[in-house]
């Protein structure tokens, strides 16, 4: 009996070596493990063993049976693994074949810049007001302290619709509309398109500005610079500084031109800053008393600052675009390059 077990064990071991598929495994199972298989046959032969030896022999046969069962399970797992690997191999594809296209468009660089600018000021508590692109003389000039014969009107070549209705030359009329509607504290941005009858390499007859206005008690020139410092740091780089210098706008007094230290060369002088270390980015100042008065705000109680930034200018600086015309050509090879 023990010899038979030994033989069978050896036979099974040999058979295992020749199994490579599920089918062969099934055949093998049929031959050795099924009801009429060789292992079952061994159990049947037990009854031929002398009675006194049976318990001992029974244990031996049972041990062999469970050993064989375990080996079968191992074999089965191994075969399954082989088959799965084979299936995977057959299903494999060339993953470098082209993708199914799902093209995504992009925002225009002016929009990207405008959004980035809004984000910075929104964090400081600025709301956004958009105003009208076709305005009246009153909001665009007169109430901004630009009287009929004021020299500032010479600086602004204005498109007129009628004697009194015009394309806004700046976003500043938004100041008037906001101050007419709201009382201080006011913190507002007025982004939008503006128009001047100017057209050359550096001017487009239509361009975008972003006005900023703060009106509250005790607003000073220091606050203007503080807010713009923050803007420049967020917009360009953490280590830039701003510089104020005197300028003139009819709706602010004092008026300032604001330069930012060159973020390209760090102020040493390069082609971007034309060797000066500074880049002119915007104009602003303390809101003129007359403008506050024109909106029913008492300049003795409240003060404010205002500024106007050219969005194209910021976009050009930020992205290194040297020709403003490109922003309005809408060449897809250009537009497809910009992202946040």
């Amino acid at each position, binding site marked *: 009996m023990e010899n038979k077990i030994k033989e069978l064990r050896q036979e099974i071991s040999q058979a295992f070596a020749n199994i490579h598929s599920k089918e062969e495994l099934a055949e093998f199972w049929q031959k050795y493990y099924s009801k009429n298989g060789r292992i079952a046959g061994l159990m049947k032969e037990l009854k031929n063993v002398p009675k006194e030896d049976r318990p001992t022999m029974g244990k031996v046969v049972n041990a062999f049976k469970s050993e064989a069962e375990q080996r079968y399970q191992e074999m089965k797992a191994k075969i399954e693994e082989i088959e799965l690997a084979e299936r995977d191999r057959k299903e494999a594809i060339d993953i470098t074949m082209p993708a199914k296209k799902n093209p995504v*468009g992009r925002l225009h660089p*002016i929009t990207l810049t405008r959004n980035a600018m809004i984000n910075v000021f*929104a964090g400081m508590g600025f709301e956004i007001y958009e105003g009208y692109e076709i305005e009246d003389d009153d909001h665009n000039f007169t109430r901004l302290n630009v009287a009929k*014969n004021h020299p500032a009107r010479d600086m602004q070549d204005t498109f007129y619709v009628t004697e009194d209705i015009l394309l806004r030359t700046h976003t500043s009329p938004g100041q008037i509309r906001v101050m007419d509607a709201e009382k201080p504290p006011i913190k507002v941005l007025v982004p939008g398109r503006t128009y001047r009858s100017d057209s050359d390499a550096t001017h487009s007859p239509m361009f975008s500005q972003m006005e900023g206005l*703060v009106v509250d008690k005790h607003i000073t020139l220091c606050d203007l610079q503080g807010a713009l*410092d923050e803007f420049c740091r967020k917009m360009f780089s953490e280590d830039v500084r701003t510089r104020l210098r005197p300028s003139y706008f009819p709706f602010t007094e004092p008026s300032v031109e604001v330069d930012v230290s060159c973020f390209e060369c760090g102020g040493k002088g390069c082609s971007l800053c034309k060797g000066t270390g500074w880049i002119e980015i915007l104009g602003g100042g303390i809101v003129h008393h007359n403008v506050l008065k024109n909106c029913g705000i008492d300049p003795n109680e409240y003060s404010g600052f205002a500024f106007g930034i050219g969005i194209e200018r910021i976009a050009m600086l930020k992205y290194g675009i040297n020709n403003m015309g490109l922003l309005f050509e809408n060449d897809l090879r250009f537009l497809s390059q910009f992202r946040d």
Partner: protein
Amino acid sequence: MKAPFSWLKQYVDIDLTAQELEGRLFSSGFEVEELIDLRGGMDRVVVGVVTEAVRQEGTHLHICKVDAGEYGHDIQISTGAPNVYVGMHTAAALDNSVLPGGIRIKARKLQGVDSYGMLCSGEELGLNEDLYPGSEVYGLLDLPKDTVPGTDIAEVVGLNDYIFDISVTANRPDCQSILGIAREVAALLGKPLRMPATDYVETDYEFPGMDIDVAEADRDVCPRYLGHGVHNIVYKQSPRWMRRYLALCGLRSISAVVDITNFVMLEIGQPMHAFDYSMIKTGKVLVRRAKDGEKIQTLDGKEFTLKTNNLVITDGEEPIALAGVMGGLSSEITENTTELLFEAAKFARDSVRHTARGLGQNTDSSARYEKGVSEYTVELAMARALHLINELDCGEISKTSFDISAGAPREGKHFTATLSGINRILGIEVPEETVLDILKRLSFEVEQDGDLLKVVAPRYREDIEIGEPDLAEEVIREYGYEHIVPTFLKDARVTGGGLNPDQNRRAKVKQLMCAAGFYEISTLAFYADADLDELNFPADAKERQVIRLMNPITEKLAIMRRVLAPSVLRVVVDNLKKGNNEGRIFEFNKVFIPKQLPVTELPDEVQHIGFAAFGPDEDFFAVKGAVEALAGAFDLNVEYERAEDVAYLHPGIAAYILIDGERVGYFGKLANKVAAGLKLPKDSKANLNIYMGEIDYAKFESHIVPFRYKPVSEFPSVTRDLALVVDEQLLCGDIVREVKNACKAVSEVELFDLYRNPAMTALGKKSMAFKITFQPADAALSQEDVNRFVNKIVGNLKYKLGAEMR
């Protein structure tokens, strides 16, 4: 504004270099756009004395020996100039020298003889007769005999100088003059200002019958007019110093008297005019607005026909000058002039501007007037001009003079301010002494009473308007903006910021368009009638009811758009021309809809979304998918109507976009007629495949309602497929609508197959198969329920649309 360094030094002692002064001017509000070095890079060009000049046989050259002081006493230089002579002091460019403009001179052989440099003409040094007399003679510059050999030539001929080209802001017309800039420099440096001499001597001579007046009704545009008679005029050249200053500022010398008017304009900033008095027939001068159709011939020979908004100087009958712009030819100063009338006047800026621009006659004088002159400069300039008549000894000053004034006060503005108020604007504490010192240096008269300042502004500062803010600006620009300490809205109250819901939604629309593959474009808001023609808009289309500009830059940009399509199509065409053969673009921007025409009030500004998809892979349904994706993002359900009447779209491949039954826009294939007219190369036009559309965002947006969360149904949905045979003409949308109408439980109807075979086609039929999804609301659907629904749907389709089950 051009200011020569040497001229500024006439009025104030400047102990800074030109570069240092440039920096100081910049930080006080006067940006120097260009600092022009008159040397122009000139180097090693010195005074040389010709000690020997021997004609070289067979050539036109003289071989010279030149004494150039410390640079060598015996330098051999050949010259071809015929005027060379022994003992001549001239300009010698030494070996390795640089001439103005960067030309380098090196020792070389001339006709076989070594020449260690070059002797120069005035022209080669960049000089002209006004900058340095004798410069324009043919040949070498013949310098005075007292010039010392070896001296830098720039010092001798006045090229050791700079010109500041200063950008003066519009509020400071008082600085559109050498004196004005000098005044600022004096204040900056804390140095005294030397005023130009204005004293003069009048004779007893009176101009018989001279009379000057300004028409009462026209004093608004001529608030001040000074006239002064000058007699015994001597026609002569003005002195070197005056000619040089004029030349440095780009003016040519004409004669002493004319030069004086130009010099005073530059120096004081006040345009002046001189009339030949003998040519004023009536002897009288009347300033008035022109009569319609009046004519004048100006000094440059041009003739103008005038309108009533032109101000003129007349002899009581006819115009003899365009006020503030140019004198008339008839009373021009000539060498025969013996008596003249000097004019210094204040004309209103917009009057001069209208005349100069209206007639296209822009002059130095009109440019000054457009910037503005003050009553103060009118007086100063006249006195200065008369002084110069005396100084140049070119005439005598009559006691006949006139001063016609509209009565403006002859003193500076009075106002009060406080020290604390000034500091409150700036946000810093400027020391009291500093404030007072700065105001004093800027010639403000200040009377202090504790915090209170009683101030009188200088007369020439007509820009000072309201007091404290003006003074704050004066103080900080002198004190220095670097003293401002940035504070981050220190005292401002906290406010909520950011986009409002409408702005957020518009930002989302842009993102959604991008997600659907569209690139955002940005185009000009104006175009031309021709652009509407190109898109086939009929004459009576509402898109042609547009706002027109009175003064467009070009006719191509003359109307404000009320539809985006022409701009969008232009971008498509531009891209095709550049070889970008496919793409999707959109613009989300305002169009302008007049409330009435002609315009009398502000128009409606309405947001539109214009879009286009072009290229071989695009089709109507791809674009339709994009439209539905956009609408779907806001839970809007889109329906369609065939759009046969959109001017620029294909009548058979276009649809109106309906939301809740309202047309909010349209899209479709570009009409064949429009495509055929596009300016594109023939071969690229053969396969044009362009889809376009436009959505009125205001209408679109009005259908969006806040969403409310609904729990997901716990009952499973059931789907059934339905294959139908229908008339070829029947629209898919009609079937879908009918299925939905037939049964409330239908949540989705989707066409999944369209099939035709010859037998069907012969009968004018086609087969369409739909997947219908039923979503129960409150109970699971039984097989019987679904069968009932399907039967009802099939019955309705058959009854209403003649559809048969396949």
